[in-house]
């Protein structure tokens, strides 16, 4: 085969694949940081199996001169670290894919007559250092050198990453990075592979952020000082992040015995004046639904980060789906208001979660941050988060002797006091209650209390985040999406190259923005894109606007859409 390859394009896709435990995550962590520091635009996402060792996991990294923010199917450089890795991503390997792998390790996985294969002794080199475990860091060194990155930069991040480990481990990983780096420069060499990606001056001042980090930072910015949760993929990262920051920011981060406890703790914490959240996924949230209903009755604020994964039941624990919209929408017995926000861009995770705390406190309602595995596990460089308009809005009052927690008010909001602040007594009850918060079976009062709670539904409509239209205002074809698919749809619609197509992204899905109907009526053709099997958002739109979106692009394999795949499916419906 011909090993002289020049990548003329300014957008490269690298996929690394290996068993759980081979350190694929380490590779992703190190490479994304090294690329970012070098001034490249970078996007990364991972897909992994629900196991601790073995299996096959992969991470996809895009590096580009311009911004890259979505997952592509195409693989330009493929680095399999174990046998079987190739079958795992077979459909994505093309004759143009360059495969960097150790012949002995992956043995018969490749047909050398069909594949562009370059033998790189990752494992052999690692073994020379002392253990094949270092092959992931050898690969980091090799890839970095292909991009002309300085060894010094690589070493710095390797050292930092392993800083908590013993000196021996640090030294061996540094040696692995160096040997890998040399493999890249000598074995491959600029005459064989040439990569032509330019630095982007904007990257330097940007931040490299994942969906998990974005939501967790948003929680801190929202004044979150209490998180209770039970570990569940893919939601646990938010708990981990806040636990790490707990000391610095005075946050109580507690791992509860189950999701039921987590939810009831969070509601108890709000009662005593904390700003609390829970983080969970579908199955865990199912256990929280009774507590959600409690929040509805107590008129307690609560922020719920619901990171979706495919169900029903245990489903695919480490994969992605947008199939819990209806769960969030209808969870909890009885009738009470709620807000559902669904971040699209990574920074939405920050701004929406921040706002969620203020909305929850102001309206005394549950606020959902509905993400999914694709969103929480993806990251890219983006503009630095802007704190200038951020306020922690507290709506707690100091109570007087005659304070009544559930005072019947015109707008439905009863000023919220907390025990110990003022002379009033704070009584809250899961039973229907009177204005003072005591149990009642006065059925006329019951009706007034229901009306009071539901008056807030109307009030919430005054503060809806509008959908974002991207593309021509004079569109004929409108693509509708919500939540994590934002960047994928954006790139796919751009790829269509049509002046008559635009897309409309919702980051608030409930209450549905008022403008929705106008946007939809203007379109000659509307296509909904959802990462689920029953187009749950289209159903919600129909319920509230009467408009039935008939053209649907749905995916429910457990993976998010790839840009190419979505482009093709959109193209098919539009031509």
């Amino acid at each position, binding site marked *: 085969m011909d090993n002289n390859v020049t990548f003329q394009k300014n957008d490269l896709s690298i996929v690394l694949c290996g068993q759980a435990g081979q350190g694929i995550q380490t590779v992703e962590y190190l490479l994304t940081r090294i690329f970012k520091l070098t001034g490249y635009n970078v996007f990364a996402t991972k897909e992994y199996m629900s196991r601790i060792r073995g299996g096959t996991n992969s991470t996809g990294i895009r590096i580009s001169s311009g911004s890259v923010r979505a997952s592509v199917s195409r693989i330009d450089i493929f680095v399999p670290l174990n046998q079987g890795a190739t079958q795992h991503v077979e459909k994505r390997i093309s004759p143009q894919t360059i495969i960097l792998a150790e012949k002995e390790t992956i043995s018969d996985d490749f047909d050398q007559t069909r594949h562009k294969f370059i033998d790189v002794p990752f494992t052999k080199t690692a073994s020379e250092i002392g253990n094949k475990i270092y092959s992931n860091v050898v690969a980091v060194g090799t890839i970095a050198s292909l991009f002309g990155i300085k060894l010094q930069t690589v070493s710095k991040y390797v050292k930092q990453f392993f800083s908590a480990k013993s000196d021996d481990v640090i030294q061996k990983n540094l040696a692995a990075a160096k040997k890998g780096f040399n493999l890249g420069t000598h074995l491959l060499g600029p005459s064989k592979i040439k990569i032509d990606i330019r630095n982007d001056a904007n990257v330097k001042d940007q931040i490299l952020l994942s969906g998990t980090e974005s939501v967790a930072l948003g929680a801190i910015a929202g004044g979150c000082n209490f998180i209770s949760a039970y570990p569940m993929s893919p939601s646990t990262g938010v708990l981990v992040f806040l636990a790490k920051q707990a000391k610095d*920011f*005075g946050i109580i981060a*507690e791992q509860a015995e189950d999701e039921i406890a987590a939810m009831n*703790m969070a509601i108890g914490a709000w009662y005593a*004046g*904390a700003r609390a959240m829970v983080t969970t996924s579908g199955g865990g949230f199912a256990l929280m639904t009774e507590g959600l209903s409690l929040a509805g009755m107590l008129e307690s604020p609560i922020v719920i980060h619901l990171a979706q994964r495919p169900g029903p039941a245990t489903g695919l624990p480490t994969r992605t789906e947008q199939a819990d919209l209806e769960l969030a929408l209808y969870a909890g017995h009885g009738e009470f208001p709620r807000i559902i926000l669904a971040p699209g861009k990574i920074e939405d995770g920050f701004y929406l979660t921040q706002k969620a705390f203020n909305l929850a406190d102001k309206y005394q309602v549950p606020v959902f941050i509905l993400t999914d595995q694709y969103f929480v596990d993806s990251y890219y460089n983006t503009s*630095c988060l802007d704190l200038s308009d951020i306020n*922690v809005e507290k709506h707690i009052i100091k109570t007087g002797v005659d304070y009544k927690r559930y005072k019947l008010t015109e707008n439905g909001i009863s000023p919220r006091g907390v025990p110990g602040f003022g002379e*009033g007594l704070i009584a*809250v009850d899961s039973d229907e209650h009177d204005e003072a918060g005591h149990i009642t079976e006065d059925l006329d009062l019951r009706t007034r209390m229901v009306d009071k709670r539901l008056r807030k539904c109307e009030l919430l409509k005054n503060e809806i985040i509008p959908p974002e239209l991207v593309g021509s205002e004079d569109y004929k074809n409108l693509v509708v999406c919500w939540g994590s698919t934002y960047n994928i749809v954006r790139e796919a619609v751009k790829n269509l190259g049509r002046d008559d197509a635009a897309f409309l992204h919702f980051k608030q899905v409930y209450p549905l923005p008022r403008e929705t109907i106008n946007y939809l009526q203007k379109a000659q053709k509307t296509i909904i894109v959802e990462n689920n099997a029953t187009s749950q958002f289209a159903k919600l739109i129909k319920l509230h606007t009467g408009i039935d979106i008939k053209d649907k692009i749905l995916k429910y394999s457990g993976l998010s859409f790839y840009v190419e795949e979505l482009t093709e499916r959109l193209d098919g419906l539009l031509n």
Partner: protein
Amino acid sequence: MDTQIFGMANLDIAWCPGCGNYPILKILKQALAELEIEPTNLVLVSGIGQAAKTPHYFKTNLFDGLHGRALPAATAIKVANPALTVIAESGDGDMYGEGGNHFIHTIRRNPDITNIVHNNMVYGLTKGQASPTSQIGFKTPVQVGGVFLEPFNPLAVAIALDAGFVARGFAGDAEQTKEIIKKAIKHKGYALVDIFQPCVSFNKFNTYEWFKKHTCYLEDSHDHSNRNEAFKQATEKEKLPLGIFYTNLDKKTFEENIGIYQENQQPLYERKLNFGKLHNLIETFKIAD
């Protein structure tokens, strides 16, 4: 302090005449008044059931939550504002049945709260089914052939988990039960007070007379710092002992362990976000040299 400070006007109490909840309500008010605990500084947390209505007959802060879920809420209230006195109070079905998992893990977590359980060995509000503590052979409309499940032993479980304060009282003995409750409230950390009480409507077996006949106080010589001895007393079946079974005064509370109150005593509602620190944290995501 006069118990009237906790008094409520025009009460329509939902308990049956002669219910064992009445003396417990009175005893608790007396204990709190003697300890000079202000209503504004007290939070009563309960679940669902007849016993769980106790806070509604009290002039104080209350959180009457879900069935079985009083303990997680009480834990969070205490840790969000450690200056509050927090009492989680409910029945045996609520605390040991529906809330059994929370009972176990709250003991492990050790918040400085008092857990009072009205134990009448039957479900009252749902009309007479077996509770986790119903005695073997107890017949009900559901357990038609009599209960055959081993009764839950809350004291033995609590001692096994090394709870800091484990006691049992009897609604028929106001004076001693009040003293137990006072000690439980003063105990730093989780304190369990299981209180035997009759259900006059649905438990015709475990009556006042039955409890008087089948209980006895622990001897003065009982060493409540001795865990093995406490466990032995907790598993007595011939006569059910009353009193303080076990104490462990060396345990750190949840509020102490959580680590945010060492340098700053402020409750969470008084605290403000440090924007400077947040700014610095965000800066680290620039991955600069």
